[in-house]
């Protein structure tokens, strides 16, 4: 009969007490593990956001907000000056407007069921976007990316060609397929591809070469220009020069860092919350196990006295009580690790709301944390269990060494 057997016997001697302590510890350890996981995810997300955003600068006509509001375009002569600014690596123009003809019907229907409807009878118009054909995989208004599911993307020599790529929902609604011809503002435009953006509004758009949109809708200049600076350290200098071309009453200039700050503050706030909760959970777990062991030792003073009287050394008794604390910690850590799987993502969602914002330039979509719970959480759990057992053994080590068997066995 070794110490392990004695530890198990003592743990099952009072199942209610052991179960109660394990339950409380499980919650504490589970919370700590969830917070460790969420904290790790926020850290990854912050790194990822930094990589994604880089040196991007966006210019839009003043007062334009996302795909809504604002008037006019940025004058082409001013847009043309942008590529001459030093430290500008690339300039990407785009235009967007509404299709107002009768030949196509919006896929976002009024009053229907499902995700593509507006309550109260408001009907979403069809958005037309124009990009430079040299732009690979452009970003649609609302932040969505195009995934060509049929046909092809533009070739670089199609900047003024009467061709377009249609969102999946819009194509389905209007029976369009690759090769279909649609009359847009009196011009027959050929469908060369169909894309899926994964978004209801993103799939309700027509995408054309920028020159085609400008020509068909009689637009001059661009409704949005995206510039990449050659280095993150040069962004402020480039913005400063842009401001000389586009004063604040003409255009809004948003840098990637502005967006980064907004997202960063959201995720960083979640990170600090998770860190604080993690520390609190660790402290609670430590206090619970310490309290449990203090209770265990105080209740079993006589038993400790007997063990000493029959020749057990302080170390042997500490090993037994430490083993009991470790046993409870390990059970709690396993349960805590198991509850981490279903709860980590939910907690992350509470800390950083991930519901996609239509009008926020995709900030919340980027900020939303995707938590992947890895099996390594069990390693953390074992680490926590051992750490707690070490914490828990401090009191018995001190207390047991002070017990004189004659004193505790003196009175019955």
């Amino acid at each position, binding site marked *: *009969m*070794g110490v392990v057997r004695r530890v198990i016997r003592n743990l099952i001697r009072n199942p209610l007490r052991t179960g109660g302590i394990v339950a409380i510890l499980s919650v504490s350890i589970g919370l700590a593990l969830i917070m460790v996981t969420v904290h790790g995810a926020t850290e990854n997300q912050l790194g990822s956001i930094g990589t994604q955003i880089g040196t991007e600068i966006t210019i839009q006509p003043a007062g334009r907000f996302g795909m809504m509001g604002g008037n006019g375009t940025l004058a082409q002569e001013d847009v043309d000056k942008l590529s001459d600014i030093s430290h500008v690596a690339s300039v990407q123009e785009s235009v967007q407007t509404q299709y107002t003809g009768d030949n196509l019907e919006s896929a976002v229907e009024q009053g229907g069921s499902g995700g593509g409807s507006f309550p109260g009878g408001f009907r979403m118009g069809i958005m037309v976007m124009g990009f430079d054909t040299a732009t690979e995989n452009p970003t649609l208004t609302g932040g969505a990316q195009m995934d060509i599911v049929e046909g092809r993307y533009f070739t670089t020599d199609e900047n003024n060609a009467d061709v377009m790529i249609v969102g999946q929902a819009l194509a389905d609604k209007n029976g369009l397929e690759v090769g279909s011809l649609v009359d847009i503002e009196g011009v027959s435009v050929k469908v060369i591809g169909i894309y899926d953006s994964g978004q209801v509004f993103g799939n309700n758009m027509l995408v054309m070469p920028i020159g085609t949109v400008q020509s068909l809708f009689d637009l001059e200049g661009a409704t949005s220009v995206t510039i990449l600076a050659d280095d993150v350290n040069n962004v402020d200098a480039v913005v400063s020069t842009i401001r000389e071309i586009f004063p604040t009453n003409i255009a809004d200039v948003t840098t990637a860092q502005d967006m980064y700050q907004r997202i960063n503050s959201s995720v960083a706030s979640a990170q600090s919350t998770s860190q604080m909760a993690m520390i609190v959970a660790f402290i609670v777990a430590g206090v619970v196990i310490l309290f449990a062991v203090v209770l265990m030792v105080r209740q079993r003073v006589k038993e400790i006295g007997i063990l*000493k009287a*029959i*020749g057990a050394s302080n*170390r042997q008794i500490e090993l037994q009580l430490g083993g009991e604390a470790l046993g409870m910690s390990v059970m709690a850590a396993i349960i805590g690790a198991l509850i981490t799987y279903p709860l980590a993502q939910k907690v992350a969602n509470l800390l950083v709301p991930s519901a996609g914002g239509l009008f926020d330039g995709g900030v919340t979509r980027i900020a939303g944390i995707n938590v992947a719970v890895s099996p390594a959480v069990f390693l953390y759990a074992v680490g926590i269990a051992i750490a707690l057992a070490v914490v828990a053994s401090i009191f018995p080590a001190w207390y047991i060494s002070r017990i004189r068997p004659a004193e505790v066995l003196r009175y019955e």
Partner: protein
Amino acid sequence: MSNYKEMVVEVDGLVKQFITSEFTTVAAVNGISFKLPKEKMIAIKGPSGCGKTTLLNLIGALDKPTTGSILVDGIKVSELYGVNEAEYRLRKVGFVFQYYYLIPSLTALENVMLPMDLRGIKRRIQEAGARQLLERVGIDASHQARRPTRLSGGEQQRVAIARALANGPAVILADEPTGNLDSKTGTRIVELLYSLTTKEGRTIIVATHDADIAARADMVLEMKDGKLVAQSNGKAEKQRQS
């Protein structure tokens, strides 16, 4: 110089003082000296509070003397600390308490195996030894797997005696071993203890205020107010009772 081959316990000028809750000093053992022979049953008798239990605790290293020395089987008990003290309790003495003090979560068999386990003896040997000891004190196989709560007082005390014998100690210290038993069971326990000296050559020191136990002893030490007031052999004790 002591002759260790004959004397197993030598106590010299032993004093144990306690500080009371009123911060006064009381001597539970007050300047006692004696020598006890091997392979005998020695009774320490006297009224409650005379210092019998304190004396046994000092001999068994459950407590530290204020002054004086104790020599048990050649070991200076009063100078032991820490691991050496635990090792002495494990190998040199076996305790039998009035209230048995068995570990409640362990079976009778496991309680007897425990001191051997603490010594690091292999489980197979522990179990065989423990079964043999339990048989010897009259606990049959059907009772060996029972927890203490399912044993009678007499059976629990027998298990406690078997536990005290587990590591073959030089001295068994029994503190009022019949104090919590009815007279009939108490007599059987006394017979058992006595047989351990006569049949197995064990040295047993019994603290008691029971005259019957004192009557069976080979030597009787009588204490009063922490002092040794009389020392006689068992025959004298018997004659005095008759």
